[in-house]
């Protein structure tokens, strides 16, 4: 199964109607009981090409491990940085 197929991914998928979301929830609940992972491995390679630029659609798609000109950090490192009382402390912009 692809690394991005997680409970979170399934729960956040767009459904055409509320009724569809309710029906899908039962299926997802079953997968949760069966042991489907909650979230993706942070360093799992989804095979997405980092040279593609901005994605114009389907914002919930997998992301690349790296991108040209940027430094990537893990969540653990981010956590440490946020805990620091420093002027260099990063700002996190949450979209949800």
């Amino acid at each position, binding site marked *: 199964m692809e690394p991005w197929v997680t409970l979170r991914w399934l729960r956040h998928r767009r459904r055409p109607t509320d009724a*569809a979301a309710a029906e899908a929830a039962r299926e997802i609940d079953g997968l949760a009981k069966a042991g489907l992972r909650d979230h993706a491995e942070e360093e799992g390679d989804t095979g997405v090409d980092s040279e593609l630029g901005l994605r114009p659609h389907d914002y919930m798609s997998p992301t690349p491990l790296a991108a040209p000109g940027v430094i990537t950090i893990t969540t653990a490192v981010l956590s440490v940085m946020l805990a620091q009382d420093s002027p260099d402390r990063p700002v996190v912009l949450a979209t949800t």
Partner: protein
Amino acid sequence: MWRVRTLQRSLDPSGLPVAASYHGYHIDKVVKQPVQRRLAAILAADVAGYSRLMGVDEEGTHEHLKAHLSQLIDPKIREHRGRTVKNTGDGMLVEFSSVIDAVRCAAEVQRGMADRNAKTPEDERIAFRIGINLGDVIVEASDIYGDGVNVAARLEALAEPGGICISRVVRDQIRDRLPYPFEDKGEQNVKNIARPLRVYALRPECMAELPATSLPSPTALRRHTALFVTIATASAALVIAAVTWWGSSMRTPSSPSPTMAGVASENSASTVSVSPAGSAPHLSVVVLPFDSFGDRPEDARLADSLTDDITTRLAQIPNAFIVARTTAFSFKASSLAAHEIAAKLGVRYVVEGSLFRFGDTIRINAQLIDATGGAHLWARRFDTDAADDGQRQRDLIGKVVRSLQVGVLDAEARRLDHQLPNSLTAADLLLQVEAARHHPHTPEAEAVDTERLEKALQLEPRSVEAMIALSHVLLRPLLQIGPDESAPVRVRRAKQLVDQARTIAPDTRSVLDAQAEMLRVNGRWDEAKSAYQQLLNRYPEDRHLNNQVALCYIALGRSEEALPLLRKAISVGFDDPGVFVSEINLGNALIRLGQDGEAVEWLRRGKQEAPVVGAFVYSLLAAAYAHLAIRRSSEGARSLHSDGAMGNPSVAPPSAAAH
């Protein structure tokens, strides 16, 4: 004279053998002359608006029609080695020695009629509609019967006045051998024919661009022939063209037309033509009656039913020629070997098999033979519990038929794989894509399909079939896996193809189906449901359409309404190789409704039939097992994490599948 097995229900009042009634026991006396059958190209024609013309000017119309027949139509029939079989009120039957001759004759008649009508006031013009088909016919002294004749008559009714309609099998035989621009009119529903007909039309406007006919002028001919015209011939036209059509498909345009032995001699005892299997058409199959060992009549019925179902299913393969069951059953008592029967019928492939029971088991052996070389291409054994259970037997028949359909397609696709690429026709390429449809849809397979269909469109730029097939190949990964970066390009190209197909063959099933698929891929589920539902209203027994409407209901969160549709899809599609999709979708709907036990049953059944089992199925099973809260939930969890799911590149996320 012919020594035959007695007929269980004897003969019907017409003297024809009763269908599916040949099983029984031998008698050693002569029963009856065999029904004479032959494969024939059938051309039907009639006068458009004949009643109106007669109402306006009875004598004048009669005279004009006689003149057309004597001066143009009869000479053209003779020129192309035709033979008039029968005249009716406003129609007639004629026969030819080849399908090429039949189509050429029809085109030249229409071309000639355009010339002859040029100086006639429009409301006095006599215009013929002509339809041509190829099929198996029952021959009697002054008439012929059979489905092939009926189809020709329906094609004729679809033709425009001054135009010609042909069936797909005719189109496939003439291909590029004749310079007539037949248009694909898509599938058409016609009266008393169960399946839609694929129709190709030559429009009246095209006639003017054809070469002028070589007949003498009407005035010159009138002097010599008017006296010989009979009132009988004045009543319009149905034309029969009997021909070894598979032979014509293999010969070069300059080679002579092969003639069927059965056609050449009306009095011949032969019921079929003799044609070497080596010159058989590409996908031509005879399904020989399955043998049943033992003396149980129910086993004999099951064997006959199996033969019927295989024949019916194979006949649905596009561009295939399948020998009619009645012809195949005439070999039931024959001592000829399979390859000899194939040679007599001029077919490439032979399906044969047997049914017998041992202990509590019914066993069916089935095999596919390449009659040109004698090679066994495919063989399988199917067992089922011999308990008197209609559903069990139906399941067994379904398995055999599904497997054979895929086996036949694969055999022909493999043969085409060994042909020179430039020798393949659009129909060949479409068949290769159709065969691949029953195998795993990998990116590599999609690339091959795309290349083949693009090539088919180069060869036949107006092929609706190729347009729709390519649209489906492009959209398939989006429907099964979900959108990716290629989605906009795929959708744009697919829309172009569907729009183009719609301009050529609007309101046809394949185009409407593709339009509904476009709605689906764009997430417009409600509209897609309505579009599929409209098609389902026209074809209520269609597995795919029942499945598609159900799929829309599931996507919209109305799984309860999907259940009856999916159950019907599975019932009517028991012999459809794609039935596993409906079984999996039913499992999916049941999980969403909390009916996990039954869901597991359907999912396991679909899993057995699927050419490849993706993570979608494993995840559904895992969810159902987990909900059941039984120990086997661990089996479900194992399924989810099994190598098969983890390592499969073509896995689909838990969304509804389509086929």
